[in-house]
């Protein structure tokens, strides 16, 4: 870093110190979500209201499970960034900090609940044997 001047190191980073990183990440996640949302609406919407066994079997299949997993991960990361943009427009000082912390925690909580559940549903048919294990005598 000794080769870079202070001016060069600061250029393009702006008052936030991180430049346009948040805007870029919101853009990337928004492009991904355009496709994910379409797939998720028509897979989850199909499963919603199914009897228990049918719904569990539906999310034991790879395609609906991968779509749901990606939608939770990308969607909640998009919310984590986007909600902060909104909060920073309307709140200042300590209120701003608490609201941003709360929104980030909520985003990762729902991400964890959703992702864990989808993975558990997808993996269960692979690890729970269909018939009881019978040991040889």
């Amino acid at each position, binding site marked *: 870093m000794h080769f870079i001047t202070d001016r060069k190191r600061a250029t393009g980073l702006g008052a936030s110190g991180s430049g346009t990183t948040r805007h870029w990440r919101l853009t990337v996640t928004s492009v991904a979500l*355009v496709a994910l*949302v379409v797939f998720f609406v028509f897979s989850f919407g199909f499963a*919603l209201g199914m009897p*228990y066994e049918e719904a569990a079997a539906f999310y034991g299949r790879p395609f609906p499970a991968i779509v*749901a997993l990606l939608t939770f991960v990308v969607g909640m990361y998009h919310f984590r960034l986007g909600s902060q943009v909104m909060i920073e427009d309307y709140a200042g000082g300590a209120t701003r900090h608490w609201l941003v912390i709360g929104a980030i925690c909520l985003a990762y909580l729902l991400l964890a609940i959703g992702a864990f559940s989808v993975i*558990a*549903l997808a993996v269960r048919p692979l690890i729970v044997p269909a018939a009881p294990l019978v040991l040889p005598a």
Partner: protein
Amino acid sequence: MADIPRGNRPLSPYMLGPYYRIQLTSLTSILTRITGNALIVTTALIAWWFAALVSGPEAYATANGVITSWFGDLVMTLSLLGLWYHTLAGIRHLIWDNLAMLEVPKAEMLGWACLGGSVVLTLLTIIIL
């Protein structure tokens, strides 16, 4: 720098009402923000549905019952409208990010496309599902 009152500056909604007339572009912009952030409620409901499906038949019956009740249907239909609106408005931002369609008539046309498109997509989704 010392005489600037930092921390006591007016934040953006202060000008709404007395100083600022709502237009289609600003209305559709505010709607983008409202729909995007409100979708956290929908996400919480859907995360609950998935967690209940993992937990077992009784928990699933409760979550699935609430989300497919008349009130749940109302919330999910409004969520669908909000989701399609936010998606279309997001595509509009991607278009604007490429410095395209920024002229007022074209920007307003995109605003009507978001409003009308979200209603059409919601009706289509309800018909298909």
